[in-house]
């Protein structure tokens, strides 16, 4: 009998019969229920599970439990509870908005608490060295650095309120404390340890047929197995997808698999057995088939066809055209033709897909990390052939989404397993499974021709973008419809033709990823714009100012905004920074060259626009709210907060519109049974669309209250001891809430409102009103290129964003920082190679050492459609980053990289070519 004893957060714990190879992370999470330890990779690549052992930070996933025998182990809970630096860090992370989704936050705080205390005040470099082992995919790290320094008495944080603050005022996120303490429950944090475990059997081949063997004997030989699930066990439709006309992805492949990692079966068993479960022992035989590995292969004559229903391996296409681009290009003073390629990009949220399901009161309850609970539920109803009342989806905290958690992942397996076994079940993807099987950013192959007049006015643009959509449709149609609308950039282009095509290949499905294809298109366009400006001898910023959209100027879709176009303001806001950084770069390079330093400074610029909400499709959000007898307002808010902060922003907007002083707010949901459909957390729509619905709901609630008081809609109201009173103007009317009847929902007043952005469908030329509002952005990137090694280090960013109206400055900045970090990753290091880069050390995302200081400039050009004028922001933030970096690389050393990412290999090859050329 082995007994493991150690001190956990200052108290001795004893655990019996821990297997020799059990990880400390598992012992802590499953035997001691310390779910504040978050696990992102089980390989030491992400640091989320960091704990202190005898005061030193280590990864709990890389520590054998038996190695802590008689040692001191401290988790985030212990660090904060003991006061001192741990508590100061927790306070500082909250006020400094250093947590977004929160999955990495406990690891960050513990790593910071474990910094060597040598008495000296830490520098930024010390902080980076201490936190370099913890990956964050949301924050861009800058607020983490500031918060750690502040906890050590270095630097100030901007004042931030706790409690719901009025729009425009910096407030702590409402869920901040539990994210920092690790008590927020993510996908794998809900299940009890005894829940049955689901594991998926996946295709090792990009394309194969398969035969499943004798499952009855397999189950009999392995008594730990409760059941095996395959396509035959799906009671409803074995297909899912996000667009009704493109429902094509099977839950379990039926006869042929189409990408490495596609599911063919699920095994459900007790946790002890499943701990050792080896998918290689599963009875299935494979017959590998020739696969279509890229778009060239897919479009070749005689290419193997992925689906009968999509001719020529083409899923769909899109088109926007206006004027006569061929003629305009002919008439142009200069024109250039360029081609551009990008890679698969992995979302790499630190929380792998995970969830828990059980049957409760005859209903299937599915808890999972998701960005789209109602869509999940509707798909599950079809798959399971259940009536609407049969399934409820309860989103857990989401440890980063960025678009990929819009699609189903673990949900159907959980739901089916719970239904078949009638037992609680859990499923957490390994990092490899997550990377193999969930959606990616579409690789793009873009060719464009663009011209300009001698005066520097754009004259003609032809754009063609092929997008590798992988094996199934997912969000491919959203990419092909969105890209042609955006490929002009935020510029006036009278003569324009843009075409997009989604091409099927035997790769993991490409889906939604922050920007839906626009970042790829923007990288191609904005680098070409830079070249045009250069050839004409016009400053790159001036060139963009000469061409940018304005109020009253039609977009390429013929949409004319009479207000709210903020791109000129963004570009103008960069003028002084542009001049300063360009001058400094010039001087620095002269000095560096003279002393033989291989570094070259470069400064680049790019602009962007992005339509908020679905493209030319209905996109409603519904919000419900009620006032209870005890005087609390309850907001049924179904817009999932994936770290971006909708829980906070929508609450701010609601409380502001409700305007009943002293009324406490409670948040209910998200939960498909108690929150109406607030749509998906995608397309930068929650602040705008759900924010509007929340304000409409608050106003209508307010009207009901005012009517009961016989007061006007605009009367000043306040809550005082269970009574709502009309205040000011000597009015003494009041309403005793306790005296009012309570409806079946438990409220004395309640209402539900829906907002749907006013858009129109596009005609066959792509003309119409695809979005009710756009947000605008322009960013400057400052980089150092090492011309001896081809490496690039970002030195500074200046980011100007038109957000219409700032609701919460901390969250706005957080989006910008995080978007820039992802844009930098896409520009310099991120390249998912199916079957090869299935972990977080072969697939690289930026670390804390890679993100330089970011200066944010917030522009408020209000939009009449937005709540208080606010515009969406979530995706705009990364669109200009990659091209700004590419333009900066060119400025530094004269090379144009047209294949992303700009790795040291590619940069050095380009430098050599230039050297030979000259």
């Amino acid at each position, binding site marked *: 009998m082995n007994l493991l004893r150690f001190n956990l957060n200052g108290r001795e714990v004893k655990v019996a019969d821990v297997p*020799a*190879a059990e*990880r400390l992370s598992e012992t802590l999470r499953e035997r001691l229920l310390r779910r504040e330890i978050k696990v992102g990779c*089980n*390989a*030491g*690549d992400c*640091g989320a599970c*960091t704990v202190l*052992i005898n005061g*030193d*930070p*280590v*990864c709990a*996933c*890389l*520590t*054998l439990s*038996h*190695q802590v025998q008689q040692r001191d182990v401290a988790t985030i809970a212990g660090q904060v509870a003991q006061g001192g630096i741990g508590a100061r860090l927790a306070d500082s992370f909250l006020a400094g908005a250093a947590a977004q989704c929160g999955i990495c936050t406990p690891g960050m705080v513990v*790593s910071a608490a*474990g910094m060597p205390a040598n008495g000296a005040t830490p520098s930024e470099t010390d902080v*980076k*060295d*201490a936190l*370099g*082992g*913890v*990956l964050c995919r949301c924050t861009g790290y800058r607020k983490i650095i500031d918060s750690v320094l502040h906890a050590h008495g270095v630097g100030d944080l901007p004042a931030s309120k706790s409690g719901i603050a009025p729009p425009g005022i910096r407030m702590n996120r409402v869920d901040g404390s539990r994210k920092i303490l690790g008590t927020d429950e993510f996908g794998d944090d809900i299940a009890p340890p005894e829940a049955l475990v689901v594991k998926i059997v996946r295709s090792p081949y990009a394309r194969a047929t398969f035969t499943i063997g004798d499952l009855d004997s397999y189950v009999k030989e392995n008594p730990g197995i409760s059941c095996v699930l395959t396509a035959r066990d799906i009671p409803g439709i074995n297909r899912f997808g996000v667009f009704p006309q493109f429902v094509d992805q099977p839950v379990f492949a039926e006869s042929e698999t189409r990408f490495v990692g596609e599911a063919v079966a699920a095994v459900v068993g007790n946790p002890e057995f499943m*701990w*050792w*479960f*080896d*998918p*290689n*022992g599963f009875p299935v035989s494979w017959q590998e088939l020739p696969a279509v590995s890229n778009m060239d292969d897919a479009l070749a004559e005689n290419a193997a066809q992925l689906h009968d229903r999509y001719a020529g391996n083409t899923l769909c296409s899109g088109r926007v055209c206006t004027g006569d681009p061929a003629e305009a290009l002919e008439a142009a003073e200069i024109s250039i033709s360029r081609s551009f390629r990008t890679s698969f990009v992995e979302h790499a949220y630190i929380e792998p897909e995970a969830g828990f399901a059980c049957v409760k009161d005859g209903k299937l309850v599915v808890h999972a990390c998701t960005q789209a609970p109602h869509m999940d539920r509707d798909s599950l109803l079809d798959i399971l052939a259940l009536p609407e009342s049969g399934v409820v989806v309860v989103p857990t905290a989401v440890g980063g989404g960025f678009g990929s958690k819009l699609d189903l992942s673990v949900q159907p397996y959980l739901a089916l397993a719970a239904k078949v076994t009638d037992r609680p079940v859990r499923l957490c993807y390994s990092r490899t499974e997550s990377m193999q099987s969930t959606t990616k950013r579409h690789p793009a192959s873009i060719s464009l021709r663009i011209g300009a007049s001698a005066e520097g006015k754009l004259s003609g643009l032809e754009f063609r973008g092929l997008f590798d959509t992988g094996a199934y449709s997912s969000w491919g149609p959203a990419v092909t419809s969105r890209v042609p609308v955006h490929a002009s950039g935020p510029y006036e282009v009278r003569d324009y033709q843009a075409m997009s095509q989604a091409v099927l290949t035997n790769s993991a499905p490409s889906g939604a990823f922050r920007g839906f294809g626009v970042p790829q298109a923007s990288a191609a366009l904005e680098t070409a714009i830079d070249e045009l400006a250069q050839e004409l001898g016009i400053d790159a910023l001036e060139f963009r100012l000469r061409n940018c959209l304005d109020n009253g100027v039609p977009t390429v879709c013929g949409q004319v905004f009479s207000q709210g176009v903020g791109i000129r303001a963004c570009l103008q806001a960069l003028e002084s920074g542009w001049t300063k950084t360009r001058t400094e770069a010039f001087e620095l390079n002269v000095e560096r060259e003279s002393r033989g330093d291989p570094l070259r400074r470069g400064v680049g610029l790019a602009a962007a626009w992005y339509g908020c909400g679905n493209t030319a499709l209905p996109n409603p959000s519904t919000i419900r709210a009620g006032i209870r007898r005890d005087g609390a307002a309850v907001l049924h808010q179904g817009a999932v907060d994936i770290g971006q902060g909708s829980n906070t922003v929508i609450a701010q907007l609601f409380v502001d519109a409700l305007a009943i002083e002293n009324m406490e707010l409670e948040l209910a949901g998200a939960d498909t049974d108690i929150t109406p459909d607030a749509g998906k957390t995608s397309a930068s729509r929650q602040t705008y669309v759900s924010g509007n619905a929340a304000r409409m709901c608050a106003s209508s609630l307010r009207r009901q209250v005012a009517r009961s008081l016989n007061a006007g809609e605009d009367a000043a109201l306040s809550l005082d001891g269970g009574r709502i009173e009309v205040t000011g103007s000597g009015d003494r009317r009041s309403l005793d809430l306790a005296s009012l009847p309570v409806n079946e929902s438990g409220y004395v007043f309640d209402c539900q409102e829906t907002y749907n952005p006013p858009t129109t469908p596009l005609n066959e030329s792509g003309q119409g009103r695809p979005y009710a509002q756009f947000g605008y952005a322009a960013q400057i990137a400052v980089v150092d290129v090492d011309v*001896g*090694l*081809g*490496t690039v280090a970002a030195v500074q960013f200046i980011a100007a964003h038109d957000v219409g109206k700032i609701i919460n400055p901390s969250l706005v900045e957080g989006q910008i920082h995080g978007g820039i970090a992802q844009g930098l990753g896409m520009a*310099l*290091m991120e*390249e998912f*190679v199916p079957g*090869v*880069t299935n972990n977080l*050390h*072969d697939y*690289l*995302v*930026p*670390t*804390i*050492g*890679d993100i330089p200081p970011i200066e944010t400039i917030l522009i408020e050009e209000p939009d009449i459609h937005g709540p208080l004028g606010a515009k969406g922001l979530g995706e705009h933030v990364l669109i200009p980053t990659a091209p700004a970096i590419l333009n900066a690389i060119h400025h530094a050393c004269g090379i144009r990289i047209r294949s992303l990412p700009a*790795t*040291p*290999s590619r940069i*050095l*090859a380009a430098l050599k070519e230039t050297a030979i050329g000259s």
Partner: protein
Amino acid sequence: MSQLDGDGQVVAGCTDFLPGLRRGSRIGTLVDITRIPELRGIRIEMDHWRIGATTTWTELIKHPLPKAFEGLKLAAREVGSVQIQNSGTIAGNICNASPAADGVPPLLALDAKVEVCTPAGSRVVDLEDFITGVRRIALKPGELVSAILVPSVAESTGSSFLKLGSRKYLVISIAMVSAAISVDRSGTITDARIAVGSCSPVATRMPELEKALNGRQARSVVDRLEVTVDQVASLAPIKDVRGSAEYRIHAAAELCRRAAIQAAGRATCELASTDAETAE
């Protein structure tokens, strides 16, 4: 020790063992050697420094060592992250025998040897001979690495380590170079040792380059040094997601140049400070 002859497996920092653990892999007896005091810590013995097998990278960073070890300490700071440095051990890094093991180039540049504890006693093997291929080492069943031995080096020795990756932390190198350069009283290079990692199945010394440096004035190397691709042509890099083979060769040459310049510069500084001490 007896366990190691059967199904036993030695583990220490576990930073390679646990990530390599797959569902379904059957595990025999695990022998954790991290609590054996004799296998841990750094001390000077006779004519060499002894670094216990389970000494962690953090312990190495914190231990006062001569300037010649600076390259090794710089490498230790670039092993993964603080978390990995706190757990990972020096012998584990060697026994894992990854072509990209951060510890190997600086140890090669220090002419390190591996002390192997056998049931019959112990033997000492040159590090160069100990790592025989990708994930292959000259360790027989029943044997255990007990220490890394680094021969005492001339006082006027400077060393360096440069790791090239696509990001700042938690990175597996595309290429890395460590140099250790010793000079005599006149500033002439007497012994240049340069090792390159991640560019061949096993990190390797660059004897031709070393020969070209020996006999040169360290100061002149600092002022001007060219390293051509031909001089590192003995490397056999692979192409992978981190970089092309051609790029690795080019980067290796450039890193050798920079590492040698840094080491030569540090050696002359060392020389100057020893002279100053003598003058006092």
